[in-house]
């Protein structure tokens, strides 16, 4: 197993205003609840979606979607 940087998404609920752009860009991981606020799927972001996840974080109008870099434990 190589050392791969995986990322996890996290939401700052105070900054989040329910714009919903994250859910448009990353519907595989982010859905919206009945009030328009994001629901994140649990766990780290699958590798193929990493680029989209970063784009979604940049697109958030209030910078409420946060990228957390987690290095998995070296086996």
């Amino acid at each position, binding site marked *: 197993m190589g050392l791969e940087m995986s990322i996890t998404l996290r939401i700052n*609920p*105070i*900054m989040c205003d*329910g714009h919903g752009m994250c859910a448009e860009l990353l519907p595989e991981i982010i859905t919206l609840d009945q009030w328009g606020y994001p629901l994140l799927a649990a766990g780290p972001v699958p590798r193929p979606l990493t680029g989209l996840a970063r784009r979604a974080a940049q697109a958030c109008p209030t910078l409420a979607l946060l990228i957390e870099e987690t290095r998995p434990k070296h086996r």
Partner: protein
Amino acid sequence: MSTELVRRGPAAPPPAIPPYRPPQARLPRLLAGLSYYRSVGLREHEHRYGPIPWRGHSGRERPERLIDVVDRSGLTGRGGAGFPTGRKMRAVASGRGPAVVVANGAEGEPASGKDRLLLTRLPHLVMDGISLAADAVGAQEAYLCVHQRETELLASLADAADARYRAGIDPGPIKIVGIPGRYVSSEQSAIVAFLGGGPAKPTFAPPRPHERGVRGRPTLENNVETLAHLALIARYGDGWFRSIGLPSATGSALVTVGGGVARPGVYEIELGTSIGQVIMLAGGPTERPQALLVGGYFGGWLTAEEAWEIPMSQPTLRAAGAAMGAGMVLALPVTSCGLAETARVVRYLAEETAGQCGPCVMGLPALADALADLAFHGGRGRATGQIQRLLPVIEGRGACRHPDGATQLVRSALRTFSAEAQWHDQHGACYGVARDPLLPVPGDEEREWGWR
């Protein structure tokens, strides 16, 4: 430069026995010097407990670090979260820059009275704890926070802090601060934000206060009861503190007992005392209890049968579906309606959001509406389903634990009152809803609405 205040007298032979003698009885500890009629003044306090133990309980030439003693004592926070105090102090002491100590005496829970008791009757025990903690973590500022509308209490505490500083007891002045009376304002990060000049609303973590708190400094925030325990541990040692309680929950704690009991009030118990014993301490139930609310409005409901034998401590209560919280036990008689009481409390919690996070601001009122339907108007068979669908959408999605406390309360209510919930859903309100409310919810005239 050493941050420990070392008082050196003339060279004397080491004392044969520790200079501070702990009380003989197991209990009371914190409430040992309590008077019902007046506050314990500075001289009486020093007479009973001795001066602040800067050199530690053993009185040896080389005093042990207080943080190590607190670590070994197993003291955990008495404000609700139950975090190990020694670990928190260590984190703040190793933080960057001069630290800040904040004593939280704001007691946001309407049903709790222990902090108020300590501050009105035994303020010097709390202030000893503040000074000792400040010295131990290298803090240069210390604050004691209470609700801003408690003008008399603010004045008396300011006098006490002033007297101590002028007498040279505290190395630095303890600043008494009044904070807004909103429910979430007594939360740790809200107080830290307020002391930094902002509104008293919880903030997003990271960073946590012990890394970057008031004005960016590492901040030690503790409940006033925790600091009072610390003041005694510094005098009598960790072994004494651990001599009562459970291995996983050491020492004593203050609990507020209320609801349908003969003598509601604040009592000091050994951790591990069963809930039933606590109720009997308060004079026993006035009517046959159907359920108990343990841990306050962020705690949980338990049926009287299952609760009676459960020992009071954070781990045991969590395992049972409740919480230690700030140590509250409220007895609900059979003639009351637990769903109605819960509905009222959740309505209060919904009005007390900070208004910052969408799922909480939208979700709690929806939850309160659904509960009100269930309790008072009849759910038409749909209310419990509605509530169950709302709960996972609300919990864990706020910046603070406010929505989680509400959902935990509701989950425990649906579990404990499941038969009643089914009945309500089909038939509407029961007779118990007409009974006077038992769980205290502040009336409109007592409520504050500002954040500064």
